[in-house]
């Protein structure tokens, strides 16, 4: 495993967590590049102005198939020309830019046109904005938020002719929100989320524009707090498929799942499926609000939602196999949560 140092990531605890997690992801087993531990919040505008530092970082990034640029630059009008050179288009015309300007605190813009894997770990209690432009590549991106406090994550993905695996692990965060948006062309996206929410309301909102692409979105949620999940497919166009499945453990609270899905008139022959399953503990309330707008008769759309309480039959079956009562409930829950990795 290669660990990139001197990039703002100097805390031993986080480094160990990253190494442990990378091991779980089997990064080591794969061929070069052998895995990266990268803090996106490494460069700021001042650094960028220091040519020597930029050259050094760029050289290191190039060696490791990474190109990155701090989003602080996007607040400076005079850097638009540079950004256009670096990224090939004008940020001022992108809506995400405005969003970033409004909420900006930290984040990065990353252009990827090589096969690689990115790993980002943070105990952040801040706002993180990442922008990924991915073309002609096979990419795995893992974001791991370990913080217990407020966190807000907003990613914007433009994906063309690529296969992207995106994993988001949000651990012990409260009052947090994730707001990611994806635009896909001739690509495949597999997005997995593991969310351990706590106490405070959480918002997870995803918006998609899908053209001739496949999207698989899977999530496991432990939810002692209130959760609002929104998957918004504003546009699903032809030859596309969308498969969303969520698994949750709901306890002592109210949870709302809202899915809005609109297939475009051009969505001829596309398949759309949203499935939510949950284990509900006593006193938990789960609300599901499906909203489907299908504008093409040849677009297949399905929506299902079910919750269950642990049945005696299941508990007895596992006990008969030699697992004791407490362990039975634990194993069932753990497997629902592990499911997102499969």
């Amino acid at each position: 495993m290669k660990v990139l140092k001197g990039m703002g990531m100097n805390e031993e605890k986080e480094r160990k967590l990253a190494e442990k997690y990378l091991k779980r992801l089997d990064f080591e087993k794969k061929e070069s590049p052998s895995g990266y531990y990268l803090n996106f919040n490494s460069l700021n505008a001042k650094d960028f102005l220091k040519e020597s530092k930029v050259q050094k970082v760029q050289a290191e990034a190039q060696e490791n198939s990474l190109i990155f640029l701090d989003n602080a630059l996007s607040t400076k009008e005079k850097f638009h020309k540079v950004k256009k050179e670096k990224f090939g288009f004008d940020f001022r015309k992108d809506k995400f830019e405005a969003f970033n300007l409004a909420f900006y605190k930290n984040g990065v813009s990353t252009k990827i046109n090589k096969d690689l894997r990115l790993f980002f770990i943070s105990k952040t209690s801040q706002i993180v904005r990442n922008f990924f432009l991915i073309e002609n590549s096979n990419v795995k991106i893992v974001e791991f938020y370990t913080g217990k406090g407020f966190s807000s994550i907003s990613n914007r993905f433009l994906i063309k002719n690529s296969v992207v695996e995106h994993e988001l692990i949000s651990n012990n965060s409260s009052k947090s929100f994730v707001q990611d948006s994806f635009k896909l062309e001739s690509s495949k996206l597999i997005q997995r989320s593991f969310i351990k929410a706590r106490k405070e309301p959480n918002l997870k909102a995803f918006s998609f524009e899908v053209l001739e692409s496949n999207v698989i979105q899977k999530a496991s949620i432990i939810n002692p707090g209130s959760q609002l999940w929104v998957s918004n497919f504003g546009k699903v166009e032809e030859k596309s498929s969308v498969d969303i499945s969520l698994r949750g453990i709901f306890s002592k609270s109210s949870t709302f799942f809202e899915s809005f899905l609109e297939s475009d008139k051009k969505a001829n022959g596309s398949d759309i499926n949203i499935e939510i399953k949950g284990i509900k503990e006593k006193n938990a309330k789960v609300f599901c609000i499906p909203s489907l707008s299908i504008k093409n008769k040849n677009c297949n759309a399905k929506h299902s939602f079910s919750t269950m309480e642990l049945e005696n039959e299941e508990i007895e079956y596992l006990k008969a196999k030699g697992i004791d009562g407490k362990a039975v409930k634990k194993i069932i829950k753990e497997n629902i949560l592990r499911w997102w990795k499969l």
Partner: protein
Amino acid sequence: MILEIKDLWVKAEKRNILKGISMKFEDSKVYGILGPNGSGKTTLAKAIIGIQKISKGKIIFNSKDITKLPPEKRAKLGIFLGFQQTPELEISLQSLLFAIDGEKAEEKIDKLKTFEEEMGIDIKRNLTGLSGGEKKKLEIFEFLYMQPKFAILDEPDSGIDIDSFKILVKAIDFARKEFNPTLVIISHYENIFNYIEPNFVYVLKNGVITKSGGKEVIEGIKRHGYE
């Protein structure tokens, strides 16, 4: 004697399902329990493993009264039930085996790789959306993995195709050579006993044992049915 059932009664919904059953099972022998649908065969199997409440009677295992022992402790003593119907579970057999044995499970699973491949099963897959035959094969795999002293296979032959049936017979032969358990095969078809010869047969009907004896009992069923 490895297991003895004394005057076992099971009542459910104000109806007696088992009515004073007594049975004896010896070490490393093969037993057949036959009977028509609704005769109480599965209820008996569940009572032995401890997930069916009994109203009267005793179950003795290796000279120890296990009547009040919970199912997980009976399983740990070496009693195994291969279920006729398994529930839908968001858990894989592999996870289940790891929950039982921890890291040791990996090595034990590896030793059974050939069977996993021959059976065409995927033990990493969750126990949901599986066909009846697939579930049966997973139960058989688990039986080989657990190497129990006393195993009840509840209708292992129902819902499986001819190739799977051959693998089932092969798995049981393997078990008898490797760990030689007392084997109780429950079925309402006598065909399986053409391939796995029982030392003793019980016939159960309406919650009572109507016949018992050697394999000649099966011949009688073939000719006259359960009447």
